[in-house]
């Protein structure tokens, strides 16, 4: 029995030493992991806005990092999910660096179609939940998560209907000048058309016109246009309905009462 006791004692001591060595080197190596986020770039293609986030990880430790997964969940200020994206790096060996671009795609046409249409007209901010999952030393799964905010500028901010002027045109119709204006606070250029419809208090169509977003409305700029609409009875105009048809989104009707 003395031999068994001695063997158990030696085994326990050796395993304690190995575990202590692993713990010290693992903690030291964890502090040699240097994650870095670069400055995000924004681009728009068709109706999708893409935020590209450069991410790099320098693994100066003794152990490999495997299954590195960066996930982001973009939500509006009320917590409604807008988009989720993930970028996977299978292996970051010890002593190496890895750089990837994490792309977050936000479908603006989807925003216009769903409960997020208020974001077309109101500046707001996105809440971005960021999570970094990784497997450290092939033994310890880790997750580091945080959240951040990303400002959102509305493409149709301060949409305003100016005073409608009326002038006789011919024996049956009047020419109305309908001024509309807005500010493009977003990251993308707006081009396309705005369809106007003048309606009475029963929503009957009195007349329609079109305004061109010409040549385009660049980011952080204002737009103003006076569209002419021919109507037979201008005294019955109670509201203006606007339909936006741009290369990025289509939305309407926006109903603005006429005072």
């Amino acid at each position: 029995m003395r031999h068994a006791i001695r063997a158990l004692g030696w085994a326990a001591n050796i395993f304690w030493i190995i575990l202590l060595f692993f713990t010290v080197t693992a903690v030291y190596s964890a502090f040699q992991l240097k994650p870095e986020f670069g400055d995000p770039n924004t681009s728009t293609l068709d109706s999708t806005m893409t935020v590209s986030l450069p991410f790099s990880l320098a693994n100066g430790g003794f152990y490999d990092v495997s299954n590195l997964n960066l996930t982001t969940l973009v939500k509006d200020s009320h917590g409604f999910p807008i988009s989720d994206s993930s970028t996977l790096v299978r292996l970051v060996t010890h002593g190496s660096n890895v750089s990837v671009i994490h792309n977050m795609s936000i479908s603006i046409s989807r925003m216009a179609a769903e409960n997020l249409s208020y974001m077309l007209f109101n500046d707001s901010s996105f809440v971005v939940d960021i999570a970094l999952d990784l497997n450290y030393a092939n033994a310890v799964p880790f997750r580091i998560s945080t959240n951040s905010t990303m400002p959102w500028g509305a493409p149709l901010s301060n949409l305003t209907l100016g005073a409608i002027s009326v002038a006789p045109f011919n024996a049956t119709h009047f020419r109305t000048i309908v001024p509309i204006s807005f500010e493009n606070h977003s990251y993308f250029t707006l081009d396309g058309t705005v369809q106007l419809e003048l309606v009475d208090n029963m929503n009957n169509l009195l007349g329609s016109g079109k305004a061109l977003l010409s040549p385009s409305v660049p980011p952080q700029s204002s737009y103003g246009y006076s569209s002419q609409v021919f109507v037979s009875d201008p005294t019955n105009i109670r509201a203006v309905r606007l339909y936006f048809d741009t290369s990025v989104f289509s939305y309407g009707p926006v109903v603005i009462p006429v005072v």
Partner: protein
Amino acid sequence: MLPRIAKATVKGLLYLIFLFVLPTFLISQLSQFAPELFASYGRLLNVFVVVVIFFVVASELTSGTIFQHAFNIGKAIILIIFFVVALTGGIVSLNLNLEGMQINIWADLRIYMVTLILIDLLGLAKSVLQAVNFLSEKAEKQLPTPQPTE
């Protein structure tokens, strides 16, 4: 008795240096990076050191008796419970505030915790065998010595 007390004191001081002074110095250096993280583990380290030193000194003071082995067995069992409690069952979750940002760190240390427990079980098995060996040797001493028959 006096040599036992002296030995227990020396052992206790050595354990204090290697289990408390050196790790506390390390933690104080590392806590510059994340004070909240290492502050909580500093408290756990104090509890761990008190438990280990108590059982080491008690075991040394009662060496040569069955109580030495009882204290070793108790130390192994309490350390197993301590590891499970300290590592919250192997799933560790921490909330840190770094430069105004709330960061949550989650780690699955179950494999590490199981390894700790298995190594501690080896120590427990050794202490149990030592106790059994001690009792069997004591029983053998109490048996009458067989006399040769003429």
